[in-house]
């Protein structure tokens, strides 16, 4: 029998090794590579770069270029505006749905919960295709319905298309976020409700004094991930792009980075833009967590 130490070492190598190798190769290394790229540039020799390129260190020049590009900056502003509206809307809706399901009588709850969760199984691009049809004049029954009431609905105009995208994202993820909150609601000790009932608390008081404080962790969690996901907006506007002239190829930061990389072959600038976006997402998530933490302590 081998010694325990060798055995442990071998086990760790065998059990953790494969995951760690892939983790390093597909997450840690690409991250480092993106950072490296964002501070370098390829200097081409020859008129069309046929002489090959050499990589040179350029410091923060790519970041400066990204931040002085009005297209990228406005895309960043656009997703921030989008997030400011969409994140609270999403979270309030998800929380309201969870609380409503919790308050409803047992019958039908399962059915409703399934209905709300269903869109999570629809891939983002297919959800966008679907809503895209519902936004398209001539096919959309919603626009037809609007006409009956004398409304001229335009879902794809310059002013409205961002909120049409917000609707797609909410449709897809509200039910999922709801389920996270429902899971936490279910874990509340039922004795608390009995005690509250004996004390004569109204159902509104039960919600504000017991349920909301106890599901706060789930709400915080879904908020953080909604913030991160929202700023990464990519598939939805890309799919709606052929339908709306308001969506440019750098409509969101991710689209801008994709465009830089694959249309302009400027990987360094694309990397800098991706890193900037990740930093903004990071700042907002931690900012939010800090804000919550301070409230808790106050």
């Amino acid at each position: 029998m081998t010694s325990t130490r060798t055995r442990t070492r071998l086990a760790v190598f065998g059990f953790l090794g494969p995951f760690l190798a892939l983790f390093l190769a597909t997450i840690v290394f690409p991250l480092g590579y993106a950072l490296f790229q964002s501070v370098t540039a390829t200097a081409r020799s020859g008129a069309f770069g046929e002489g090959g390129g050499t990589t040179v260190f350029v410091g923060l020049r790519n970041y400066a270029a990204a931040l002085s590009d009005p297209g990228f900056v406005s895309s960043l502003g656009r997703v921030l505006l989008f997030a400011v509206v969409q994140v609270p809307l999403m979270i309030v809706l998800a929380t309201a749905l969870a609380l409503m399901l919790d308050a409803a009588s047992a019958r039908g709850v399962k059915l409703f919960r399934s209905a709300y969760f269903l869109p999570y199984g629809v891939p983002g691009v297919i959800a966008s295709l679907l809503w895209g049809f519902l936004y398209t004049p001539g096919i959309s029954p919603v626009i037809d319905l609007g006409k009956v009431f004398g409304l001229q609905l335009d879902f794809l105009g310059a002013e409205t298309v961002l909120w049409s995208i917000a609707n797609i994202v909410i449709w897809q993820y509200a039910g999922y976020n709801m389920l996270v909150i429902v899971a936490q609601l279910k874990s509340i000790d039922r004795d608390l409700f009995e005690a509250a009932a004996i004390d004569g608390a109204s159902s509104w008081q039960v919600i504000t004094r017991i349920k909301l404080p106890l599901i706060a962790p789930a709400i915080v969690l879904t908020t953080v991930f909604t913030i991160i996901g929202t700023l990464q907006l990519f598939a939805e506007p890309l799919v709606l792009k052929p339908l709306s002239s308001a969506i440019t190829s750098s409509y969101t930061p991710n689209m801008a980075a994709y465009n830089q990389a694959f249309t302009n072959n400027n990987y360094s600038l694309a990397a800098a833009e991706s890193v900037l976006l990740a930093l903004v997402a990071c700042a907002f998530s931690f900012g939010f967590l800090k804000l919550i933490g301070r409230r808790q302590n106050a």
Partner: protein
Amino acid sequence: MTETSTPDTSTLDSSARAVTTGTAKPAKPTRKVGSRRSGPARILLPVGLAVAAIYFLFPVYWLVIAATKSTGSLFGSSGFVLSEPQLFQNLENVLTYNGGIYLRWGLNSILYSGVGAIVATILSMSAGYCLAKFVFRGREFWFNVILAGVMIPGTALALPLFLMMSQLGLVNTYWAVLIPSMVSPFGVYLGRIYATAAVPDTLLEASRLDGAGEARIFFTLVLRLMTPAAVTVFLFQFIGIWNNYFLPLVMLSNPDLYPITLGLVSWQSVSDRNPDLYQLAIGGAFMSVIPIMIAIVSLQRFWKAGLTEGSVKG
């Protein structure tokens, strides 16, 4: 929104919980109420639930109706009512268009999601088990690094991954999508929590005394005990890969390798030139969405199990 944050469930829960639990103040007795739900609430609640259900279901209803229509009546009739239904004709068109490419996309999607999710599940369960049950130097360090990996948006990684894959000559192969899909840091997190709670040390010691090797202990004993967590990770990973768009978009240019998502978008994007593709995209969306929806709803208890796992045991 991208698919990056799919497997997020309760990752931060334990820390968030530590901050927030214990803040619930017991409700102050203010007035005595007999029945806890008053008149208006009793009516408003079901109405609210029903309105929400209509919102979430009506695009699906529209899709089902639209999938039965000919290209002509798609544009010519109301989207809410049936008009000369010809569902099977439409589905046949989808399946036979361009030499049956749709079927191929479907199989590709199943391959990417199935293989990716199975490998990701086994790797993350074994890593989680290792982090839970073996004491070694750097254990907490690696766990924290993996946890940080949960927060990194996949879109930030897609471009550098593409450049790496092209260096390796793997761009435009199944591997380019499969390899990154096999990694689930969230799965490791869940696996560690679950193994800590569900795998008794005494059992491991007993099997070791009986002379069982570590690999055998893991595959015959531990994996079975960790099944609930494994199923949850598998489902999240499967849906995550199935819904992913950015990664295959960046990696693949050969339509033969496309998953369904990429294929349908390629139809939709040229449909203004070829209106028949509208109907094909709708029929294709219908066929891919319905089975997943059925699966999602019927497997709901597993999602929930996973979600509570993170929050309760964390």
